[in-house]
């Protein structure tokens, strides 16, 4: 599987979200944040700074999901990535 151009295939990281103060946020609260956390599965041919295995924050508004052989993946473009951890 190789994405083409600026596309990146990622998989979402689902975890309990806690604020710095220790307040547990529900899934719905966490959903209200624009940027989500994910792990890069494969990056496109023209993508330079992001490689497979990176944990990133991306703009969920510009993401699309697809299913490949039973796995859910999210597809974004390189410019939708805001942070590489």
């Amino acid at each position, binding site marked *: 599987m190789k994405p083409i151009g600026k596309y990146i295939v990622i998989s979402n990281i689902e975890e309990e979200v806690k604020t710095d*103060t220790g*307040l*547990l*946020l*529900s899934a*719905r*609260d966490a959903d209200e944040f624009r940027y989500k956390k994910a792990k890069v599965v494969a990056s496109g041919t023209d993508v330079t700074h992001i490689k497979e295995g990176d944990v990133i924050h991306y703009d969920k508004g510009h993401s699309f999901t697809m299913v490949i052989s039973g796995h859910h993946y999210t597809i974004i473009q390189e410019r939708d990535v805001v942070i590489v951890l």
Partner: protein
Amino acid sequence: MLHIRCEDVYLWYQIKSNYMNLGYSPKDLAFDEEAQGKLVSGIKKLSKAVKSTLGPSGNTVLIESPNHTHGLTVTKDGVTVAKSIDLIDPIENLAVKIVKQAADRTATEAGDGTTTSIVLTESLILNGLDHLNANPSLNRTELLRSLVEVSDLVVEKLKQSGKKLTNAMLTDVATISANNDKNIGGIIAGVYKEVGKSGIVTVERSQSTETYAETTLGLKIDRGYLSPLFINDQKKDECVYEDVMVLVADMEISNILQLELVLKPIIQENKKILLIAPCNVNVVNTLAANVMKNNLKIVAIQPPSFGYKQHELMQDIAVSVGATYYSEKTGDDLSLINYSDLGHAAKVIVSSDKTILIKSTARSNQQTIDERVAQLWQSHAQAAKKADKDFLLERIASLTGGIGVIYVGGNTDLEQKELYDRVDDAVCAVRSALEEGILPGSGRALHHIATQDTMFSSIVPHSAEKLAAIHILKQSLQAPLNQILTNAGISVHSVYDDVTEFNMGYNLKTGSHGDLIKMGVVDPLKVTRCALQNAISVAVTILSTNAIVTMARVYEPQP
């Protein structure tokens, strides 16, 4: 037993139909003796029905009325009797309306004394007319003015004679106002002893047949937890925390992060917090999740009541726990709220439908609370409607810290209603007694002033009118005592001829003479005072009436 038959049940009336198309409603006019005669006969009818209930030997009255449960009411309560009466003659009915208003005012102000007020009114009017008729040279206006002047002196005298209510007398006052029901008297006195003299007692209907009382020391909010997951005492289905911070806000918390600033110190120092604020479902879930999984100690409830009442109640809560009240109405921004805006309570008990806050002094300021209570008492004095007064009393109670509720039960609706009226009256009378003090009861205080006190003889009558006014009052002030004795079938002379001292009198219940106050035969000063003042006001109105305008109408038997 006295039966009132309402003939107008079988009649219906209509404004004279011939005039219907004129574009105005025609009036009947009545003047002078005719007018006054009708007014007097109206008052006599009302008074005859009401006054038979006066005193410990008062009679019961049966009322047929569609407004009451099962179409009838059995009562010994003067207000209920008075309220049920409407007469068919328009002028007589006007008189009844005026007297009812005055009686109602007495009941609202002092909680009792309706019957006394009506007896006094009737007597003042009859005596006044006697004097005016016997002596046509009297100046009516001057006479009425003198009447008011002299009655003010009587009120002054009553105030001087009032005694402070002791704890032991509490039961007596309550018992008397509950129409001599010892059991009720005991319950009321018990509640007042628990909540203290500034505490508030309210009356509610019981779900069972029993009559009992409950007291709460602290602030009660009629709202329960927003989620059952907050429960930490599974046995009682309650959430109980001690040493709790309190957040008071009336704007919806739509995002949990708005509370971050407030929750930070709570979480880090492992403290507890009660949120009194509307929360959206998601916030409630998040809070519940934090309680369950994250071991935080949080409980949230809705603000009490609605509309302006909510605003007032929330301010009260904020004052008594020492919190800053964040309100939409004053344009506050909830995300600015921080730890120092929270109040503090020694303990909170949150159940499914109510919350009790036990106050602490950690953050609240006693002086601010006292100021607020004083303001509320002022509004209470000015409030005209009973519902408003009750609401204010509840608020005062929640601020001062004691609230008692008496639940009235009965085997039948009828019994419960009758008892409810009596208990309500009695509670109000005890409140009056606590406010202004007590006087010897059984109409003795007014009787003594009229017959044996030096007050009247010390007035120098400059005019024939003043002299007449003194005579009228002297006779009328004896009327309540006379009526109480008449109801018991005893003549005044047989029991009061040898009695001279203010406190001394005849105890109808035991049939013996003695110190009325010591024997527990007492009336709240406020009741007697209000009854007299309102009676004078009505009597003066009616005596000064010379022309009456009523709607022209004809009565026809129902087809």
